[in-house]
């Protein structure tokens, strides 16, 4: 009883003094087909139904997915998430959110998230707020798609479904 009174008092006070969660002001959602294969990969991604898939039977591919940063003068991204399909029995789909400074691209932050096991249902990779040193710069997702070891075109391929970034 005492505990519940204390908890509700704290919650009440926090809300009363305006410590409520901040909501994103600018959100952008992109299809997986926005992503392009990096030149170092050497294989071609397959684009279907808005998704980018790796149909290669033996090699992982690296994909780069652009993010348009619209709010200039702010040094952080509020949050982001990426929907991926992981159909490899052992390897994960991994995506890194990378923010680099405009004037000095050798400075920046990243967050990497990985899929959790094989599943036909798209998995959501969630990214927390990420800072930048400078107030200008660029942001990109870089993902690794494991190979399609069954060789069944499309059906068993890991892929990038869609992604969203909130400024």
């Amino acid at each position, binding site marked *: 009883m005492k505990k519940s009174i204390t908890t509700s008092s704290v919650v009440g006070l926090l809300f009363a003094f305006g410590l409520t969660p901040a909501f994103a002001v600018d959100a952008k959602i992109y299809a997986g087909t926005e992503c392009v294969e990096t030149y170092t990969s050497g294989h071609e991604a397959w684009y279907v139904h808005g998704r980018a898939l790796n149909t290669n039977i033996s090699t992982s591919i690296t994909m780069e997915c652009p993010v348009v940063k619209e709010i200039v003068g702010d040094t952080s991204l509020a949050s982001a998430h990426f929907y991926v399909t992981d159909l490899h029995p052992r390897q994960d789909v991994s995506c890194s959110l990378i923010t680099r400074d405009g004037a000095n691209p050798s400075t920046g932050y990243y967050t990497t998230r990985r899929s959790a096991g094989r599943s036909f249902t798209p998995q959501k990779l969630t990214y927390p707020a990420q800072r930048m*040193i400078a107030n200008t710069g660029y942001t990109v997702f870089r993902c690794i798609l494991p190979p399609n070891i069954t060789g069944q075109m499309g059906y068993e391929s890991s892929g990038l479904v869609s992604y969203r970034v909130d400024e």
Partner: protein
Amino acid sequence: MKTKHAFSAAIIASICGLAILWVVTINSDSGSMKSTSLKPAPKETRANNSDLELYRDEVSNLQQEIKSLQIQLNDLQQVSRINQAEKIQLKHVNSENYQEATTSDTNQNVELQPYQQKQLEQERLTAQINTLEQQLQYEDPDPGWSNWAQDQILNNISNKQYTGVNVVGNECRSTLCRFQFQFDNAEIRDTAVEDIPILVPWESQGFFHADEQDPLNLVFYISREGAQLAQVE
């Protein structure tokens, strides 16, 4: 005749004695009934008093909790005010136009001069590096993780067979790793910067920066899975 009178007197006397005895017994019974009927009242009063004392204690405890919560809230507000003030101060540190900027700064939307912006970024960069270096200094290596983590990253880099990328330093503590790279040229460095995060075989957060004196020398700080990277405001 005399004997008959004496017998009658004895009977009368015994009847009187019995009557007196009955009266005394009745009186003593009614007295004891009175006392038992009065007994519950003080009991009830005692019970009410103890309940009241409990309620009083509860109320006083709650009042004390409210007081301590108010103190905590005041502290939080104080910290928030200090942070706000520090943010504004940081924006204008060493600024020649401090007064002018302060008066026009109503909601932190200050248009900084390019050199002020550069200075602010430099301070933020230094603070970020110092924060992570201090964390490395204070952390001990985790025998169950540090060596494994270093080997995993080194193996993945080696498997990539990069040309022009050399690992010149690496160490992992309990929740943070530091890798130092030397690149042959800026193009290789700029490509590798985006490759390295996906070569870390666990979910991680990181920060990277090039050495001011030697821009081809790059340092990567990589957090352990589940540990949040300290990011400066």
